[in-house]
């Protein structure tokens, strides 16, 4: 792996003297690279894109500059359609979240992920079931009992967006536990966490990074994490507790796993050399201390995948989302 990288880097360095060389050995960007964020400024994907922008700039990992462009319209549909409409453009990357699957399914826009070129999975974002710390329920079991005790549809679950990951998890929890929530969609994850602190909703499935500040301040309580295994970050976060002390939902009798993709795609019809350049770039990004800090702050699952393995993972996830959304009745009717 190292030698491969050294060769690539060396070749890139040699080539930059003669950028118009016909050699296919290594390619590098000849103009600023745009990272298309299919979400608004300030969200998880946007933050990650901007951290990468900062890392690339600061560590001089690339000759050209990185530009972050938000295209949030239509639950990110705008961004995906823009990528689709730039075949062969090697200077555009898209960072994705679960709306890669959910937006086309829920809105019926003409887009599918396999119209783009899969580049790399950088991490997976976790989901945690949160409740207000003032509430008496301390375990998933007590929580489910409380939901069941409340009149049907009176127990409020807050989440980001409608027919997106948070609501999918909510529906899955409903199915798994045989309960019914009133799901209230908000625009951003930070807002959802504050609504929970203010007792305007009764529980949320916020990402770790969105709710951690309130957990540390003793306002929120994590009940379980929607991952197959417990988190690896053992540092103390709130009192004696750390991310690794949160049990998995499955172990608490709530059979649901969900992780959100934080990965990159390129435009259709780009060459293998171009893909290789960015894969190499991301490998370098992952080595930096800034990236490692972001990972531990947000308790991310650091799975890294490229190529066929990545494409296969995405295909499996798409099937799963389609099944989950069909079950929940979230698929847009054909017009």
């Amino acid at each position, binding site marked *: 792996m190292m030698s491969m990288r050294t060769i690539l880097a060396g070749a890139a360095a040699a080539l930059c003297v003669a950028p118009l060389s016909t050699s296919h050995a290594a390619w590098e960007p*000849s*103009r*600023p690279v745009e990272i298309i964020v299919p979400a608004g400024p300030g969200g998880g994907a946007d933050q990650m894109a901007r951290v990468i922008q900062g890392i690339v700039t600061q560590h001089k990992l690339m000759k050209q*500059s990185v*530009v972050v*462009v938000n295209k949030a319209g239509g639950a990110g549909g705008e961004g995906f359609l823009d990528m689709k409409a730039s075949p062969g453009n090697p200077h555009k990357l898209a960072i994705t979240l679960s709306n890669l699957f959910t937006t086309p399914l829920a809105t019926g826009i003409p887009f599918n992920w396999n119209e783009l070129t899969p580049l790399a999975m950088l991490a997976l974002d976790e989901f945690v079931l949160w409740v207000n710390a003032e509430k008496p329920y301390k375990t998933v079991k007590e929580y489910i009992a409380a939901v069941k005790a409340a009149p049907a*549809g009176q127990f409020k679950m807050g989440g980001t967006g409608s027919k997106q990951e948070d609501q999918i998890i909510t529906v899955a929890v409903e199915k798994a536990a045989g309960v019914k929530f*009133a799901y209230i969609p908000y625009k951003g994850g930070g807002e959802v966490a504050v609504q929970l602190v203010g007792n305007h909703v009764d529980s949320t499935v916020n990402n770790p990074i969105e709710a951690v500040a309130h957990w540390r301040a003793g306002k929120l309580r994590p009940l379980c994490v929607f991952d197959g295994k417990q988190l690896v970050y053992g540092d103390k976060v709130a009192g004696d507790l750390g991310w690794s002390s949160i049990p998995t939902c499955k172990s608490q009798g709530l059979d649901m796993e969900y992780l959100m993709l934080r990965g990159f795609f390129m435009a259709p019809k780009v060459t293998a050399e171009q893909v290789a350049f960015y894969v190499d770039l991301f490998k370098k990004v992952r080595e930096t201390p800034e990236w490692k800090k972001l990972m531990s702050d947000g308790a991310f699952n650091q799975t890294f995948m490229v190529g066929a393995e990545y494409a296969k993972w995405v295909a499996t996830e798409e099937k799963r989302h389609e099944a989950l959304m069909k079950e929940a009745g979230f698929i847009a009717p054909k*017009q």
Partner: protein
Amino acid sequence: MSESSHGDGYGPRHRQVEIGVAAATAVFGAVVMAGSLQVGITWAVEGPRAGFFPFYVGLLILAASGVNAMRAMRTIAPGKLFASWKQLRSVASVVVPTAVYVLLLPHAGIYLSSALLIAVFMIWLGRYAWRMTLAVSVGMPFVTYFLFERWFLIPLPKGPIENMLGL
């Protein structure tokens, strides 16, 4: 069409324009209502559906447009001009080049089209000498390029020339 009684040249009548505007807003209202029907306009158990508010907004536009059209018929003197043709010609002298500009922009890139727009204005409306025109029309895109693309790192639309230069 009757002769203008105000004598301030010729031009479209204000009443006709008002009725035209009311008709346009009415069509807009109807389109909004039609669009709302597609997503459901009822008040479901958990509150109004996606089309509920837009539907009634469309309905209000439709109804108020009718009132506006009737008021235009009753209250505006038939001879009153909206604007003289001469005035409208000067308005068009901005709208037409700008329309060409916005349509050209995605294809020719922002720098070339902006230079052209500024040059057209300065020569056509301002009758400036070509030296001055050249300085402003080339200078402005340059400033724009450095300000946006280099300093603020905002990519602007580019055309064949920029591609040739490899920018």
